[in-house]
């Protein structure tokens, strides 16, 4: 007989993340690199293991190869457990037929047998595209103390941004009075973080009901949680304070990275009591050359920096040659920036090659019409030829021709 698991987590990693364009052409969004050595999924996974949740299902049906390879047997997050551990759950065939995940709720529905194997009392449902450090164990205690059926993690956002979020209006006891989905005129600034804890018995009943409803989109936010609310179940909001960022767009991904260089931002990745784990290849300490100039930057292992670096983040094994300049940019693993190339306000994906004299991105001050300016992106494995130019806001998907001197 399998022992009861108090709480397991289901991580919704399915999204193609199309707003990230070339960065998610071949990889699922949770596998997008972040912060010099991490990938987005490191945050929810590390949060789980640090919170004592040792059974995690990762739900994905889109390009799981890279994600699979990255997660491997879970060892990097201490999730290579004999019972539990991390499991990637793709759709499969049953005698009764087969289907792809129709929505977030359906994805969980299809994996009810997986969940039941572990006989959990509570299930945490997490989304896989946020950067934050959070102790789910505290949220679970909150959930249990209130005998809640569903607890939603909640963050107070600036009023001017509130309309971009799913909002909650609360009663005095933190129970949820009303939901507002991205309203034009928000009457609350309490946003849902996409982190839920459910009492499993209740969740299961609503998953079955939701699946039986042919009109449902099988989505947590749109269907299942409103249904619970309507039926008068005990829904509570758990207040969270701290850094939390959705990295669903190029701009927010770029910002979230540079946040790490801002001492005023409350996201400490060096906290030994809440380590963020990641799966990294064997690489050496990085090397800073005799004529390099490095300021306000973060550099991962295996890099060789001989040029100038300012307000930038280099992932593993990046080479910045002498005379190259990288500013306000994110450079993902294995990319090489040749002498004389200039990379500014850009995200350069993995294994790209920026050749001599090329210019990627530009300063915002050169664009009086700010609508024309934005972060430039170079897709993975691409070559930006000699003296070629990648304009601000451009998203390079194919090889670019050699430019004019």
């Amino acid at each position, binding site marked *: 007989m399998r022992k009861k698991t108090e709480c397991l987590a289901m991580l919704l990693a399915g999204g193609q993340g199309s707003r990230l364009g070339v960065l998610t052409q071949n990889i699922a969004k949770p596998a997008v690199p972040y*912060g*010099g*050595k991490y990938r987005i999924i490191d945050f929810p996974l590390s949060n789980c293991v640090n919170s004592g949740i040792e059974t995690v299902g990762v739900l994905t049906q889109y390009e799981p190869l890279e994600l699979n390879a990255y997660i491997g047997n879970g*060892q*990097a997050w201490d999730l290579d457990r004999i019972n539990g551990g991390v499991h990637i759950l793709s759709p499969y065939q049953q005698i009764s037929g087969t289907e792809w995940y129709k929505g977030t709720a359906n994805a969980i529905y299809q994996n009810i047998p997986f969940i039941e194997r572990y006989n959990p009392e509570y299930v945490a449902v997490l989304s896989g595209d946020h950067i934050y450090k959070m102790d789910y164990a505290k949220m679970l205690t909150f959930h249990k103390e209130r005998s809640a059926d569903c607890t939603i993690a909640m963050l107070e956002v600036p009023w001017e941004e509130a309309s971009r979020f799913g909002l909650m209006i609360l009663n005095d006891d933190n129970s949820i009075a009303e939901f507002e989905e991205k309203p034009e005129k928000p009457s609350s600034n309490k946003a849902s973080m996409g982190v839920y804890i459910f009492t499993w018995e209740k969740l299961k009943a609503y998953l079955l009901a939701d699946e039986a409803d042919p009109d449902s989109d099988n989505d947590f936010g749109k269907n299942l949680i409103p249904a619970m609310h309507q039926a008068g179940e005990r829904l509570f909001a758990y207040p969270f304070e701290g850094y939390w960022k959705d990295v669903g767009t190029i701009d927010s991904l770029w910002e979230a990275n540079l946040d790490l*260089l801002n001492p005023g931002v409350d996201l400490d*990745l*060096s906290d030994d009591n809440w*380590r*963020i*784990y*990641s799966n*990294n*290849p*064997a*690489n*050496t*300490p*990085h*090397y*800073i*050359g*005799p*004529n*390099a*100039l*490095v*300021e*306000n*930057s*973060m*550099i*991962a*292992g295996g890099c*060789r920096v001989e040029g100038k*670096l300012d307000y930038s*983040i*280099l992932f593993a094994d990046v080479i910045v040659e002498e005379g190259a300049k990288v500013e306000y940019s994110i450079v993902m693993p294995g990319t090489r920036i040749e002498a004389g190339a200039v990379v500014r306000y850009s995200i350069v994906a993995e294994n790209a090659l920026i050749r001599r004299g090329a210019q990627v991105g530009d300063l915002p001050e050169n664009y009086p019409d700010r609508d024309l300016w934005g972060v430039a992106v170079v897709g993975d494995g691409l070559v930006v030829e000699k003296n070629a130019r990648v304009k601000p806001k451009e998203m390079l998907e194919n090889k670019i021709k050699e430019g004019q001197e």
Partner: protein
Amino acid sequence: MRANNVLGIIYSNSYDSVLPELTPLRAMGSVPFAGRYRLIDFPLSNMVNCGITNVGVITKGNYRSLMDHVGSGKAWDLSRKRDGLFVIPPFSDSAFGGEQFRSRIEALHSAIGFIERSKAEYVLMCDSNVVCNMDFGDLIKYHSDKGADITLVYKYEQAPKIPGILTFALDASGRVSNEELCRCGITCAAHSLNIFLLRKSLLERLLNDAVCLGYKDFDQDIIASNVENLKIFGYECDSYARTIDSLQTYYEINMDLLQPDQKDALFAPDRPVFTKVHDDMPSVYSHSSNVKNSLIADGCKIEGQVENCVFFRRVNVGRGAKLKNCVIMQDTFIGEGADLNCVITDKNAVIKPDKVLSGDKNYPFFLGKGIVI
């Protein structure tokens, strides 16, 4: 022979005595090196990279930090049900009157049970004080092509200053020749890197004989005295290999890695060096930092000036501090305005603000573990 037919044996305490500064609380194998490694990572990775899946690490004393480092062997993918990594603790061996072993022969004999249980046909032995990255697959092939009984790896250059290091001459075929065998250690010579490959059954026989006859010296009593009886071949190591014989060479070898060609030779991309993963964040450079020609591991926070240095994990350099020609081990804290030249700090050292410490390139200043100055 397939490499998984070879049993690896690593001495974790080899020549602890030549590096007394760093080995009072740790074995040679767990001496920190090159920013994020421990010395045992090199023989271990060499073995794993050529496909060896069964490695015994012979220990003597002070091996807690070594056990902590190698753990279950996961970092080298040696955490296995069958085979994998085994730390062999000292055992009161009745053959030596219940005392812990002193010589290489005694060390091997104390691990004889482990060796006998292995199903491998060959044994490859390495020391921990030799920093090298070589393809043992080539060595194994050489051994088999030559039909050798024992193959030992050598370098032709100035021999390290280690008492009793084996130097020798070879004939045209590569066989160690009898007449020119000598023990010197001053001028250029073919000197042993203490890497030996031989058939397991032969090792078992030689060991049993040695114990019966009271032999103590592996090099002299087993290698040298068998040059005629056995086909002992030398295999020249043409890749990176340096032997640590003192704190001075330890310092030099670290410093030499600031030359990109030396670093690239030791960290050959197709033979990665594996080590325990620590999940530190990438290192952060502040506005006031100025770093030149240095090797920096993860987790450092640098606000001062750094030149020609090797930094281990989580070194903290305050504003206005100046470091030149230093090897700074993990969790060292350098206060604001401190000025260090030719200094080696062991783990957890603290240099208070504005302190000035200076050694010489030929005689670095050493600061022990946890010292606050």
